């Protein structure tokens, strides 16, 4: 009864997540969204946090990120969802003031970077997960069929799939930024779900073997 309630809850969560995804999509991190960026370079070594503060002042109410370009710490890339020419000029002027530089606005172009599709982000994970899930399921069926074939197959498929879909549904519903760490946690959850299933099945099998042994001993005693 308890298990059924959990399954029903997870299915409702997944359906809600699907609806929210259809209506609003994912809240992607800046790395995966449509964004605009430009590069500045000078003789000085830039402090990323200082330049990021300047950029956030100018590009208010927007996601802003500053990254180092090349290996000499004298070039930075300023990234945001949208940057106008005036804002770019403003940022350059403030950086010039901060670092006593004379970075010119000419030849600094704002580049528009298209968003990375969810399909392209998730594609490298899908086939390996399907292959591993199939291999693991085969293993469960071969080793734990005595526990009930249907139950083993159902749990073997349902648990990892439901856990992963529920996880992504929570990400979508709560509008948690979908980024690089999102998929890392998904892989960890997948491994945990498979590991937990293996431990549960093995423990059940050992209990079954002990019960069968005890029954045999009782019969022998009788």
């Amino acid at each position, binding site marked *: 009864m308890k298990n059924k309630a959990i399954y029903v809850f997870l299915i409702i969560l997944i359906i809600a997540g699907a609806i929210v995804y259809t209506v609003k999509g994912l809240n992607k991190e800046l*790395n995966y969204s449509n964004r605009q960026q430009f*590069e500045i370079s000078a003789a000085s070594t830039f402090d*990323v946090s200082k330049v990021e503060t300047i950029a956030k002042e100018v590009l208010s109410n927007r996601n802003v*990120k500053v*990254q*180092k*370009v*090349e*290996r000499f710490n004298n*070039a930075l*890339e300023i990234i945001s969802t949208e940057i106008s020419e005036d804002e770019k000029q403003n940022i350059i002027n403030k950086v010039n003031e901060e670092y006593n530089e004379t970075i010119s606005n000419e030849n600094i172009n704002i*580049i*528009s*970077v*298209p*968003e*990375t*599709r969810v399909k*392209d*982000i998730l594609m*490298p*994970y899908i086939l*390996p997960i399907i*292959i*591993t899930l199939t*291999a*693991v399921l085969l*293993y*469960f069926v071969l*080793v734990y069929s005595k526990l009930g074939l249907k139950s083993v197959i159902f749990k073997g498929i349902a648990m990892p799939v439901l856990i992963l879909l529920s996880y992504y549904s929570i990400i979508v519903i709560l509008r948690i930024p979908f980024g*690089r*760490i999102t*998929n*890392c*946690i998904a*892989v*960890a959850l997948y*491994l*945990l779900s*498979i*590991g937990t*299933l*293996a*431990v549960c099945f*093995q423990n059940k099998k*050992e209990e079954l073997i002990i019960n069968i042994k005890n029954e045999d001993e009782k019969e022998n005693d009788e």
Partner: protein
Amino acid sequence: MKNNKLKLFTEILVILVIVLISFVGIYTQKENRMENQVKEYQYSKDLDGYREVLLEVTKEESNNEDELESSDTASENKENNSENEDNEDNEDNAEDENKEETDSKNNYENYINSKKIIEKRLNLLGAQDYTISQNTENGAIYLQLPEDQETDHLLSNLLQIGKLEIKDSEDTSKVYVNNDNLKNVSTLYNSDTNGTIVYLKFEFNKEGKKTLKELSTGEYKTNPEETKDENEESEENEETNTVEAKAEVDSDESDETENETSSDENKEEKKDTQKKIILSIDENQLITTSFDDPIENGALNLSMNKATTDADSINNTLKSASTISSILKSGTMPLEYEIKQNSYIQTDINNDQLNKIYITLGAIFGISIIILIFKFKTKGIIAVIANIGFLALYLLVIRYTNVVVSLEAIFTGAIIVAINYLIVIDFLKMQENTKLINIFKSQIMKVMPIVLIAIVFSFVKATKLSTCGMFLFWGILVSMIYNYVLTRDMLIGKEVNIDEK
């Protein structure tokens, strides 16, 4: 009893040494500074840095758009004239609009196809762990590639059009075979006493096979005398001294020289009439030749080098041939792209963010350690030492097996530490009459699905998952060996019967 205590103390010392080496390092003086002799970690692009590349369609496309615009303005001017002309102009406008729609649709399809071809090339050229996105309005493609020794080679070959043509050497508009007839391209090599020759093998489809057969048996077949001349020429190429000697002898005898001159002229005339084909890729001629033998099997072998025994030269030629093969196999680019931006971007995951992840994982580890100590008292403390020793050894193995550390791998490592923790708990909970072999079997069965996942992930191309696979594989191997050699001895000692009976 004393021996057991001494043994335990020694084992704890060994663990301490491993922990110090792994977490602190071994420092030696080198040129007035202390250098850590322990190998560094290798990081993936998420943790190290990556090459950011922006590709844009070359401006020939905008020239085409200008032509369309200019044709529109011309048609607009016509509208100011008579009504009949207005009617005609309206039709022209409608046609232009239809043409624009068709062109924009074609452009869209070309953009999508270009992206697909670039992705194919990235996969064939061995790029792993890349991110690609495209602006479907102007076709611009954004790439993030791992920064390594192959990145520049990859970029220099990614945007080749990949147009293969076999055409007439005199009239290059006569193209007999092109990419549509290409079935497969592969790289071969042949070794003999003279050295190794690398070949590009072109295999053509039914139509291409038929065309090649017609060409090789028809007008492009080498004339027999031409063959003789070519053999002489090839001998000349190999033995120039012999040819020079011959020429000196001939020049002494003028009649013979005249005869030879006239025969040379005949030869030249015949050479001129000998039809040849050019095999070119992106207008670069790879070979101009006629066919000595008919080509029945629809395959053409193109040698890429002269026979050599120099290993570096062979490897370079193999690499070039393999690159050409990958470019041709991925298809012809419908549009020409150029690199608009190409910079190395350092990772934005700074030490602070990584430290947050480590602290979170460390906190979970810390809580589990406290639970161990509270539950199992003295044995719990020994178990904690064993766990820390395992973590130190695991990290050392990761460094020395050149496993790349990615974000996914860090989380996978945490799973391995959890698995090890559970194995240690099994030892702690072990009762006196329990056989160790049964516990070992039970643990192997529980861990086997993770081993299966590790094996599959290790062979995946995507670095994110292959690093996970390697982390899992080494983690389970080290855990099993470490726990059954060291931890078992520390926690259980010789009290339990290890036999299978």
